[in-house]
């Protein structure tokens, strides 16, 4: 879903058309530089800048579409669920540690009982 969405957002056809036009203008600009035609260089540079602005505009529009996309919201949900599961498991592990602590207290009691039993009768073989 992401690749298809990305291709759609990128508007590759429009980008390629802009890039192609820019390439033509760049070649003309370099030719004007070689000829020393400063006025023509400046004119062509402005045209190139205008195309670059269009490309930037396209990028920000794509960003806006991505921001509003369902893909993005679904992934945020998935990540939040995964994060919650990890925290829950970490809490469970902590609960196990606490349960073992209770086990230690039970053994303390057992030791006391054994000590008391010893005072009443010798331990059997």
């Amino acid at each position, binding site marked *: 879903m992401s690749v298809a969405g990305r291709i759609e957002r990128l508007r590759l056809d429009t980008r390629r058309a802009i890039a192609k036009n820019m390439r033509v203008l760049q070649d003309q600009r370099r030719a004007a530089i070689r*000829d020393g035609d400063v006025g023509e260089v400046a004119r062509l540079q402005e045209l190139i800048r205008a195309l*670059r602005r269009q490309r930037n505009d396209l990028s920000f529009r794509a960003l806006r579409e991505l*921001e509003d996309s369902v893909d993005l919201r679904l992934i945020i949900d998935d990540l939040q669920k995964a*994060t919650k599961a*990890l925290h829950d498991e970490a809490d469970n592990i902590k609960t196990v540690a606490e349960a*073992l602590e209770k086990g230690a207290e039970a053994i303390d009691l057992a030791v006391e009982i054994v000590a008391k039993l010893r005072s009443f009768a010798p331990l059997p073989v």
Partner: protein
Amino acid sequence: MVPFRSAKVLSTLSLALGALVLGLAACSPYVYREEIASFGSGVDTSVAAFTAMTPAYAAWATEQRDGELLAFARNGDKPLTEGCDDLELRYEEAFEAAGAPAGDLLTPEDYAACRVTPVPVNDPDKGLPNLEGLGQALKDYAAALFVLTDAEDEAALEQAFGQLNASATSLLATVNEELAARSEPPLESAGALVYQAGLTYLRQRRFDALKQAVNANDAVVATAADLLAEAALYIYSPTLGEKKDALETAENRSAEVTAETYVAVWSDLNTARDAYVAALRASPIYAFFKIETTHRALRDSVNDPANRAQLEALYGNTLALKKAAEAALKAVRKEDGSSS
């Protein structure tokens, strides 16, 4: 009868626990502790690099909005308000009914209804909350992975087993005293083994959770990183455009170059070329790509923890992620002139 049975139980327990300790010792989440910490740090830095670029979006959205406003002006549309006239009355009525309330007297919808018209489509104040939310979700996930490997719980367990160990030793001493009186061989200490087995059990549990999480979420992390990389591609585009423009501007000076200015023009052109190439190299999309590959390396490694080559691959990936994320952040901060 109880102590004798306890002795037998302890002896059997010792063997069982010993087997458990040996059997599970290889699967420790602590092996991945540093790598996961580095992964989290790489994710944080990458998201910070992305966040540092959002002013470029705000500037564009402002420009768009201003353009729309200019069109409204040309169209003769006057800036007016709507839905604001009843607001104060509603506020007083709500106070009359509720007195000093715990919450707001008006609802968010009430406030939203009071607006300035005409309303442009672009709103720079809206920001990019979903993309920022995605970055935060990815950071939270990496932090939660680290929580699993954090030693804090182990410290609590160590304390618990410290008590257990003391108690078991005391019980063992009582039994051994009696066994010695009857010329029977004493039992070996079981306490340390009990502690090790407990730790191993928890490590195994954490390891299992880690393994399950990275297996289940690998595709999610990959898509999240991919979407953030896509956002970074768009938002970084004007920065690259500026560098290219600077390169062209430097090149345009060649139209009037003379023998006297040749060295300076040539040198400036090289400097501009290097800056353009450096900007391309420091693109934040690489850091997001490395989030994906690092998580994948972690997944491969936890599925075969004894594989040294995979551990090394994971280590290499986390280092690469850290480097790429830091480079991206540095480049972005250099662009906007901030140093922190």
